[in-house]
């Protein structure tokens, strides 16, 4: 039976977890930038998660998620050997990767996972990749060693200065843009404010900047319009036209407002969930 959790690793306990899921058909087709829609159980909500990695031979995909609400909290209660009700994908347009020269990949928080898959794709395409990753503190950094294993240039920024540059990823980026001759593209994946800030930094340098929009999704196959966002004045659907877009054209204010849509119900769900017994008969 598919969708079994083969491996579960808490990267940052209680906060960020990685799972390797048995999904041969999806693994066969997955490319960097793709995502899946999954449901924990029959009563669950369909949520989108990026395919952080895939192993075509073993038929597995990896996901890395941040616990933010009911569904992701419930995912944290699943154990190795357990399974999801549904995993559907690979969805979305894969990242556009071509040999273009120097590419700077910026990842923040859980976004580092998705960024690392894309950075790998760029390295394989023969590009020089400079990765910048950031977090509040050293112990919240993800994927450092994985990234370093294929990417010779990894820069780190932490808010508290516990590792690498003390400050934001955007400051490191600014520095690179000022010193490097030719940067073909900047890819930014992370919290919305981070992606927005990256776009603000790259705009004066006129560097192509790609962001991955985490808008709210329902079906993930272009049927509902929940994920719509304004890009260059046009309404586009993140699930079928994206999720990656030209960051200089994205209406981030609208995206932020739309991400709050279901706040009340999300809180209600979470409150009920935290009151429930979560031992699942353990």
């Amino acid at each position, binding site marked *: 039976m598919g969708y079994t959790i083969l491996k579960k690793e808490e990267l940052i306990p209680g906060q960020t977890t990685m799972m390797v899921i048995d999904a041969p*058909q*999806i693994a066969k*087709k997955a490319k960097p930038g793709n995502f899946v829609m999954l*449901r924990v159980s029959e*009563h*669950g*909500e*369909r949520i989108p998660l990026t395919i952080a990695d895939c192993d075509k031979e073993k038929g597995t995909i990896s996901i890395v998620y941040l616990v933010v609400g*009911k*569904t992701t909290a419930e995912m944290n209660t699943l154990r190795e050997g357990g399974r999801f*009700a*549904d*995993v*559907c*994908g*690979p*969805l979305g347009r894969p990242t556009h990767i071509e040999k273009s020269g120097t590419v700077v990949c910026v990842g923040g928080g859980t976004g580092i996972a998705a960024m690392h898959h894309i950075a790998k794709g760029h390295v394989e395409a023969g590009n020089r990749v400079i990765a910048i990753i950031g977090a509040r503190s050293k112990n919240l950094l993800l994927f450092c060693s994985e990234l370093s294993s294929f990417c010779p240039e990894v820069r780190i920024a932490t808010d508290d200065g516990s590792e690498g540059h003390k400050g934001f990823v955007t400051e490191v980026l600014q520095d690179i843009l000022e010193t490097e001759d030719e940067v073909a593209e900047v890819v930014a994946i992370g919290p919305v404010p981070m992606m927005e800030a990256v776009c603000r930094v790259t705009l004066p340098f006129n560097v192509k900047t790609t962001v991955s929009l985490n808008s709210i999704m*329902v*079906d993930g*196959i*272009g*049927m*509902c*319009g*929940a994920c*719509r*966002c*304004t890009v260059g004045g046009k*309404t586009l*659907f993140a699930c*079928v036209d994206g999720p990656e877009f030209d960051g200089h054209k994205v209406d981030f*204010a*609208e995206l932020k*407002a*739309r991400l*709050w*849509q*279901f706040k*009340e*119900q*999300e809180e*209600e*769900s979470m409150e*009920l969930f935290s009151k429930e017994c979560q031992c699942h008969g353990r």
Partner: protein
Amino acid sequence: MADRKQKKIRGRTPMPHQDPQVRAGNFEEVALGYSREQALIEAERCLQCKKPLCQEGCPVNIDIRWFIACLVDDDLEGAFNAIRRTNSLPAVCGRVCPQETQCEGRCILGKKHEPVAIGRLERYVADTYAARSACEEVTDLAACALEREDVRVACIGSGPSSLTVAGYLAGRGIKVDVFEALHEPGGVLIYGIPEFRLPKSVVARELDGLRQLGVTFHTNWVGGKTITVQDLLEQGYGAIFIGVGAGLPRFLGVPGENLVGVFSANEYLTRVNLGRAYAFPNYDTPAYRARRVAVIGAGNVAMDAARTALRMGAKEVSIVYRRSEDEMPARREEIEHAVEEGIRIRCLCGPLAFHGDNQGRLKAMTVQKMELGQPDESGRCSPVCLEGQTEQISCDMAIIAVGTRPNPILLEATPDLKLNKWGYVEADPETGETSMPNVFAGGDIVTGAATVISAMGAGRRAAREIAERLL
């Protein structure tokens, strides 16, 4: 004799309904169905015409006169078999077909009196007969083994068009695999049309029937992503049927349309139906809560969205439509039900802009007043703006139900598939074959948003052709 005549021009037997006040607060079925007595009384109204026009009006050509004659004789089995010969989803069609423009629209009695309630009779037959085993229902035989494991057909999408293909071919011993992108098969019957009009249990019964015939449903398989048409051909499927529907919602392109609180009908209905948001927080999918709801459009989709919003607790729901009530494309019955439930209809106005508060949440909508002008190419009077006449409507939720466009996922992944100028799949009207040999298509992805029965008609034509080629 005079007595007999008197009897025949009696009015239609009314359908028992849940009380409007009560049903506006629940998701249970609105129309309750005829009793045996009511069905017999209604069946007796049929004149048994020599040249039954009703049958010509039916897109799958059900022998209506015959099935009604069986009913009059109290031969339920005969009636069921007569319907099932050409229609594999009678319990669905009896509920959602626009009979007034099809069979009932042509019924001779309708010229002077009310037409025979053919749809209600069809529903009665299908529901009453369903007590039998599903396999018997379709083939009239006990559960049958597949005859031809080597002949395989794949359907992409699991709406009424694919279900018809699957039923027809499985009944002839062909192995059918249905690939559906969502986690539940059924297409619009599951994620679009709400429970109070088409209970999921009715759809589930039809799906079980197909399973018993050996049809396999593969959910979470996205055609063009998880598996491509090319893959399926390479895997040895003898024919492929594409029935992916017309998915992608249209928006109006007016300012403020992406404010929080503005939804497409597809999103709203999918949350409530597929995600079971009506049972939130028991189910996790949330639906937006609102007091004053405006639904833009006046087709079946708009009616369903409006009535769903009412059941989800809205205090005031209106339908905003740019033409007049006479032009509304929804089924009459659904409009009447909506009005009975307290939904307000505002005709001759169309949205100009949506306005939000400082948090980006919808709070009002400006509409342009219209009047009716000359008929356009659809034959309906076109709406003409009344310059300068606008009105503000306050609302905290707006649902846009103004149609769909072809969903790009499968089409983009299948570049050999020829599309027409509107972006829908080009298919031979007789056989359903596309520009790719042995790849067929039908339903909304060929015609644009249409009806359950027309999707089934297309499925039937394709299935007949496929069977002829493969057997």
